[in-house]
């Protein structure tokens, strides 16, 4: 736990003040992989603001995760171009294949801006385009 406090201290020292709450939370998540409850409490304490404000911000933005993610992050793009080119079927195929696999966190993202390569899946930060359900499954399997 002291590790986590050190992380929070170091990051808050670099981003002092309430107006830097978002960059601070982004960096904390960057190091810890998510925002544990205790980290949010520590941030509130250091910045001398109510925990409800910190929690309010952390839950408002899609980027922040309050639970520990799996080893591999798989993001299925659900933007318009991907949607009309069948991203829903891809998402279902991935959920069937990896839904019970603790190593994989399956998320939806709104749009990664690679619309012309739709449908797109981002695996551990790497985008893959022009997929179909079978290709998507094999791309994810290749990353494990």
């Amino acid at each position: 736990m002291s590790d986590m406090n050190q992380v929070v201290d170091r990051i808050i020292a670099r981003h002092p003040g309430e107006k830097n709450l978002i960059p601070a939370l982004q960096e904390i998540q960057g190091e810890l992989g998510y925002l544990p409850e205790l980290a949010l409490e520590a941030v509130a304490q250091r910045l001398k603001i109510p925990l409800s404000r910190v929690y309010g911000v952390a839950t408002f933005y899609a980027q922040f995760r309050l639970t520990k993610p799996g080893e591999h992050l798989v993001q299925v793009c659900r933007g318009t171009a991907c949607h009309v080119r069948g991203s829903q079927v891809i998402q279902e195929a991935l959920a069937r294949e990896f839904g019970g696999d603790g190593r994989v966190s399956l998320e939806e993202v709104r749009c990664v801006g690679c619309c012309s390569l739709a449908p797109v899946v981002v695996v551990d930060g790497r985008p893959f385009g022009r997929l179909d359900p079978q290709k998507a499954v094999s791309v994810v399997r290749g990353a494990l």
Partner: protein
Amino acid sequence: MKLRSLEDLERVRQEGKTLLWPAEGKILVGMASCGLASGAAAVYQAFCEAVESQGLKFRVGETGCLGFCAREPIAELRFPDETRIFYGEMDRDKALELASSFSHGDLRPDLALGRIGGDPAWEIPELEQITFYRGQRRRVLADCGLINPLDIREYIAQGGYFAAWQALHMPPEAVLEEIKRAGLRGRGGAGFPTGKKWELARSAPGPKKYVICNGDEGDPGAYMDRSVLEGNPHSVIEGMIIGAYAVGADEGYIYVRAEYPLAVKHLRIAVAQAEELGLLGSDILGTTFSFRIHIFEGAGAFVCGEETALIASIEGRRGQPRPRPPYPVGSGLFGKPTVINNVETWANVPLISRHGAEWFRTLGTSRSPGTKIFSLTGKVRNTGLVEVPIGTPLGQLISEVGGGPPQGKALKAVQIGGPSGGCLPAELLDLAIDYETLTQAGSMMGSGGMVVLDEDTCMVELARFFLEFTQAESCGQCPPCRIGTKRMLEILTRITAGRGRPGDLELLEELAHGVQETSLCGLGRTAPNPVLTTLRYFRAEYEAHLAGHCPAGVCRALFSYAIAEEKCAGCGLCLRVCPSGAIWGEPGKPHRIVKALCIRCGACVSVCPKGAIAKL
């Protein structure tokens, strides 16, 4: 080293030119996000290896996006005389093959996409004569895919930062006047006159002012801002320097989505390089003008594209809009006068300062001069980023530049402006794309996302998809948006699930008008657009759903799959891929689908070699 004079800038320009057009020739790979998603990194690697192992003289470098996403990854061979040859759909093997051909002086016209300059005898078409580029006028995108975005000297080689130098040596009023005369309108969607906005901020009282670049490109289906930030970040920075000088601001923010990691990276490098050369910081270019830029990573909220929500977000709060007035030009970031323009608007500014208002007005319409970038995606052959004069007919854009829908399908509609825009039917293709005409037709320019839809798209389901998006992205502050969109979504969901009720369409319309008229911000006010336009232009499709039929065969409760016995060879491929065990049959005999078990995923259709499975 800080640049202090025009001579300093000129010296860097010459240095940049030798990087841009090296005497030994250069092989370039487009390494923006879409290039990378289609495998550009492996292509780049292959060229590096080939140059190394075969002792070729070429340099290998990276560049931004050329816009022709359908042909990514794209590589380029560049000569010192500014001749360029492009090769599309690259992969590792093709890269190795090309490199060895180049070493023998063979330009491989058989693999080339097009050329700029060079010799007609090469039998490579001119890039400008390819249908995708013919109708385009690339101004903002001109240097994307030409320069290395990670080296400020290549931007300067193309004349970059000369406009800033020029502006900083003029009275701020004159800089502002030029933008006003150019008639530049905001490219973020609403089309507010940029010069007017700057003037309001300039005349607002107080010594402290801000300029902000809105790069929160949240519209799913639009990515021109990403491409500009990745491929030519300095054009935005230079625009902001000019704007800050004109309005009297000394601090700026670039708000960019965290979902665009490459854009964030390129921006950070660009800002650092500009600081190093004294183009940002204090006493810029030997003047007394000082200006700093901060980069703020948006944490993922569509509503932050709304300017007051974006400001709240930079201030460290939930991205909730507030009522206007006061407008940000009077009271914006930290309560100070603030100009917010989007990425494409800022990127237009240096062009106007450099070439003048008259030049700018040579394209576009008299009310909306200049060009607009659209991202052409969906069911269209040439997907990509296209820049055309405002006022170009919609049909020309889709059929000529875009090449129409693939596989001979019929064009059905175009969704313009994302979840805030509307669906326009194929009959309206002669419409000239302009802020006013699009609004009249029930859509809007929005950010420039243009998703082409063919006969296989269900308009009711699409309306449901957009509403699901806006409903989830509603900040929840005002009831019309929070509750109204929720009720509308419920109605659309039950219609697409085959449980629509009589009177649903009328109720939907009533709710839509209510949400449109009474919501606090643009998100709520435009959220009903996709529903209202599809109701207006595709009402028969809604009525078919109420009668239990989805004409496009998309809504799963309203169609089923069946195997045509006479076509089925009993190969068993479908049976093996079916995830729900809904296909029964013996080898060599016709199989059948058990409706009750079928989840309508379509996996069987894609593997059937006989094309025996069809929707009913």
